[in-house]
């Protein structure tokens, strides 16, 4: 929806000082939860999301069992205290149910489900603080959590949103840019193949803009992917050091 709000400063930078193609500060930590089989926390700008994975484990409810592959469930949800506005209603709403559905499709692409017939893999994404771009942050964290759970994956998917503000394409929208910008295109891609695994769009865009937005995402995915790998490396290298010191838990 168009608005008159100026989203660029006089010096051409965005309101938070970023350039058009700059990501917000991004930090990923793997293995933040003890009980879950795999977990990760992502801190991306002011977003904070905790992702946890259980499985492969027995299917519940049982009738959902697939004799040929693992089934995947995904749950994206925003905590009632997560936004800067009013106390939200807890539990799923239409928006979160739609996002959970398309997130599940991403994990169905990533996981080698045929290796685990008759099981289920649950992916939970808890948004505890939100500031625009939570769905791509949640899926980026969940990919790390799946790897942390030792589940064989085709790739570590990662995502970022591209939007349009005052007629210019900008990477990684924050809440203000999302609310007052003209468009929002969350992408999740597989950096290895460049394939788009999640794609949503609103706004009014030309084919050229759609093409450029993808190129911006592909370029940014290199940085995001590096942070994902670093998170996993950090966890497992420190575990290895502990083991070498004879200090096994």
């Amino acid at each position, binding site marked *: *929806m*168009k608005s008159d709000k100026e989203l660029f400063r006089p010096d051409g930078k965005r309101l938070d000082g970023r350039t058009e193609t700059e990501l917000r500060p991004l930090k990923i930590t793997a293995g933040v939860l003890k009980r879950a089989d795999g977990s990760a926390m992502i801190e991306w700008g002011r977003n904070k999301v905790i992702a946890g994975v259980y499985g492969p484990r027995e299917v519940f409810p049982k009738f959902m069992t697939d004799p040929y592959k693992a089934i995947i469930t995904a749950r994206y949800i925003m905590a009632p205290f997560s936004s800067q*506005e*009013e106390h939200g209603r807890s539990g799923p709403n*239409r*928006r979160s*149910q*739609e996002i*959970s*559905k*398309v997130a599940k*499709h991403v994990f*169905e*692409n990533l996981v080698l489900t045929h290796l685990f017939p008759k099981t289920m893999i649950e992916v939970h994404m808890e948004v505890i603080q939100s500031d625009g771009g939570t769905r791509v942050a949640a899926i980026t964290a969940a990919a790390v959590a799946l790897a942390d759970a030792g589940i064989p994956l085709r790739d570590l998917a990662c995502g970022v949103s591209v939007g349009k503000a005052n007629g210019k394409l900008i990477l990684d929208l924050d809440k203000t840019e999302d609310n007052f910008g003209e*468009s929002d*295109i969350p992408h999740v891609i*597989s950096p290895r*193949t*460049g*394939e*788009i*695994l*999640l*794609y*949503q*769009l*609103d*706004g*009014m*865009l*030309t*084919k050229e803009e*759609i*093409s450029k937005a*993808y190129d911006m995402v*592909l370029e940014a995915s290199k940085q995001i992917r590096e942070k994902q790998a670093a998170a996993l490396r950090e966890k497992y290298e420190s575990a290895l050091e502990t083991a070498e010191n004879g200090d096994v838990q």
Partner: protein
Amino acid sequence: MILDEVKEAFVKDLMKQGKRSDERGLLDYRDIRVTKGFLPNAEGSALCQIGDTKVLAGVKIALATPYPDRPDEGAFVVNSEFCPVAHPEFRAGPPDERSIELARVVDRGIRSAECIDLKGLFLEEEKVLGVFLDLYTLDHCGNLIDAAALAGMAALTDCKMPKYEDGALVRTEYKGNLELARKVAACSFEKIGGQFVLDATGEEETASEGRLTLSTCDGDLVCSAQKSGRIGVKKDELLNLVDIAVEKGAMLRSKV
């Protein structure tokens, strides 16, 4: 279950040869019929049939209080019902994720193309008009999203605006039609046997590996998109589908 697998293999084998069981081309729609003004009680209504698929859309105009963050704008609400008569797997009860997805994809297309001037629905402080669009799936024979988007758009173009007098709506007197800035249509591509096809039948959808819906509006712009299913879409595939959606979208919008 076993029958589904047989059907799936049959559909995929045909697709690999570039054929479909009803002899359509991969990018051809079935016959499209849009009947506007189907129901006199609703302010706007339309029945859209694509092949055997039937989706009914109804619009009601009602008084509403504005959202706190947008006090000067009216409301536009889209809801979807998968009626249990439409498919043996549809059950009465709270909407499932497919129904929610359909409503939200249709909503996003109309909303982001700014078809409805929401500021024009403002009446007075704390009082606005709400446009409530309900999409009733009556017969699910594939490609519900495109049919629902078309039905919804047609019902909005059919929508008469009741008069507002002394703080109430007078539903027997109308002050013209709901103004629409532009029209929107959705094109859903299903990837089956390695090919992207338009307007999949129910049988073809069971063999689909994923879907990409692209909504386009007048001016040949893409105004909403939704990828669903486990497939990955390559950049050149996406751009190619944008071209097709722009062309087919114009054809669909001409039916409204």
